């Protein structure tokens, strides 16, 4: 698990050299961070395929903006990163067999028990990548209900920026996630900070991070996945309730 402590809120990472934000790391191969007190767990899910990936870069910036905005409100947060590419074969196996196994099962636990999700995908032929959608498809349809979600996407030209609104947002609305109003699309030119009426990329990233942070800060920290498995079927209605429901 890649645990990032608040980095002082700096977002000027565009020109930062070095491998840090680009290193692909599977969260399951990392030691568990001690999730002290009520630090919020922001899970970044990136469907970027290339390495280095501009999608992952956008995701890192969104996650850091969220952590920084939370820090401004006195709320501590950590970031865990999932690269879907690492689980691509397992995701397709899960599609075909109906169950997720091994590392992927662990990833699903991490994602569905997060305090907030930052979800980023490249746009392929006008919408989310197949890998991204396949991952969403293997999640239980109720597992993201109420989940604070921030959406981001990358593409070649700004002409596709609305794909976030017509492609991704309805998907997460269907899953009844709590999707931040601002979504962040980064076209290739955005990395040159060209800006526009909607503001430069760093401005949009900061705005989105603040929105997600507001939602997260207004809630209690959620129990981690490990704590949540104690009574896996505790929500099952009693038999009397099920039979009684039919009598009415």
């Amino acid at each position, binding site marked *: 698990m890649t645990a990032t402590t608040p980095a002082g809120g700096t977002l000027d990472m565009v020109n930062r050299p070095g491998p840090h934000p680009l290193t692909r790391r599977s969260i399951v191969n990392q030691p568990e961070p001690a999730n002290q007190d009520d630090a919020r767990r922001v899970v970044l899910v990136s469907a970027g395929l290339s390495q280095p990936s501009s999608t992952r870069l956008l995701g890192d910036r969104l996650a850091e903006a969220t952590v920084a905005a939370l820090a401004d409100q006195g709320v501590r947060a950590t970031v865990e990163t999932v690269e879907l590419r690492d689980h691509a074969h397992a995701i*397709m*196996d899960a*599609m*075909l*067999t*109906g*169950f997720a*196994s*091994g590392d992927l*099962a662990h990833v699903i636990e991490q994602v569905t028990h997060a305090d907030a999700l930052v979800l980023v995908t490249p746009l392929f032929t006008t919408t989310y990548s197949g890998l991204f959608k396949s991952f969403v498809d293997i999640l239980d349809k109720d597992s993201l209900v109420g989940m604070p979600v921030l959406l981001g996407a990358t593409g070649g030209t700004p002409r596709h920026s609305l794909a976030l609104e017509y492609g991704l947002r309805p998907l997460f609305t269907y899953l009844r996630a709590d999707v931040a109003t601002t979504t962040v699309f980064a076209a290739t030119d955005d990395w040159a900070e060209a800006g526009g009426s909607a503001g430069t990329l760093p401005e949009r990233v900061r705005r989105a991070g603040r929105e997600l942070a507001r939602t997260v800060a207004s809630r209690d920290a959620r129990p981690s996945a490990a704590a949540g498995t104690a009574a*896996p*079927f505790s929500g*099952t*209605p*009693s*038999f009397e309730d*099920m*039979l009684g*429901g*039919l009598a009415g």
Partner: protein
Amino acid sequence: MQYGIFTVSDVTTDPTTGRTPDDTERVRNILTIAKHADEAGLDVFATGEHHNPPFVASSPTTMLGYLAGVTKNITLSTATTLITTNDPVRIAEEYAMLQVISDGRMDLMLGRGNTGPVYPWFGQDIRQGINLAIENYALVRRLWTEDVVDWQGKFRTPLQGFTSTPRPLDGVPPFVWHGSIRSPEIAEQAAYYGDGFLHNNIFWPMEHTKQMVAFYRQRFEHYGHGRADQAIVGLGGQVFVRKDSQKAWDEFRPYFDNAPVYGHGPSMEDFTRETPLTVGSPQQVIDRYAAFREDVGDYQRQLFLVDHAGLPLKTVLEQIDILAEEIVPVLRAEADKHRPEGVPSNPPSHADLVAKAQAAGEATGLHVVGEDRWTGRRAEDDAETAGVVTR
């Protein structure tokens, strides 16, 4: 501890020869397989129920009724009978008939089915799957335990003064299991009634099975049927065995790679690691299956899928022989060795259920309804009336 086989009745092309049996051949092969399992000494044969190709087993009680006549010892069961889309009245009637014909050498396992269109084909709504299972089974039980039933529910035409016949053998209904992979509501249902719970985990990791069975056991105890470890549990399984492990892998791989459900997906290496599928020598199967009790507790029924994915009949019969001769005796001895005091070794047989009912003062012995209890008329009355009219 019971060990047996179950069939899903798929008609699948043998990938090594390109040959596909027709429906008639496949049905007859299943009968041969069941008879062979009986002769080899396995404890259970169970058939699935499906209403769409490539499956042929649409009429379980017809098949099992025949098998009751041509087998001697094996318990005949279903994996599973569709409690959602069958008329519960027909389930009560057909399985009571099977119980009488087989002299109690049967039980049934109920499931909701896994093919969406079966619901609309039979006039039901898949979104009501759980509710159908709950309501329909409640009616089946009443039809078996009460001679005359007045009933009204959500899903079926009401009944007034209805008597399901034949009445259950010795006044004791067949033992029932409830099968579910994903739905804890069904484990809850099984626990409520003190019925058996089947987790047919052939495509699932043991971690999931373990949680589901633990939930059922805990609720079984909650409803006062006994200790959690006394609940009646069955598991699915899947094996392909040869004396030489590598030969088993080589022979089974083309069937695995092209099988319905998991074919063209995960590798056989991954799938054998994640699910109960075990390909190898008898000892490897023994090692794997003897350890399941550590995950789910001491259980009462282990079923194996051995006849799917286009495997030829000859191979299936060989697999049954290996199971019966080299695997089951060792597994049974292992299970007996570890089972704690008070935990049943088998699911209740008909004789067990009769003894239990007699102890509770409930058994009615030979049950003959001489007259229609609703109208008070006897068959003779109708015959006399008919005679008068004719004259």
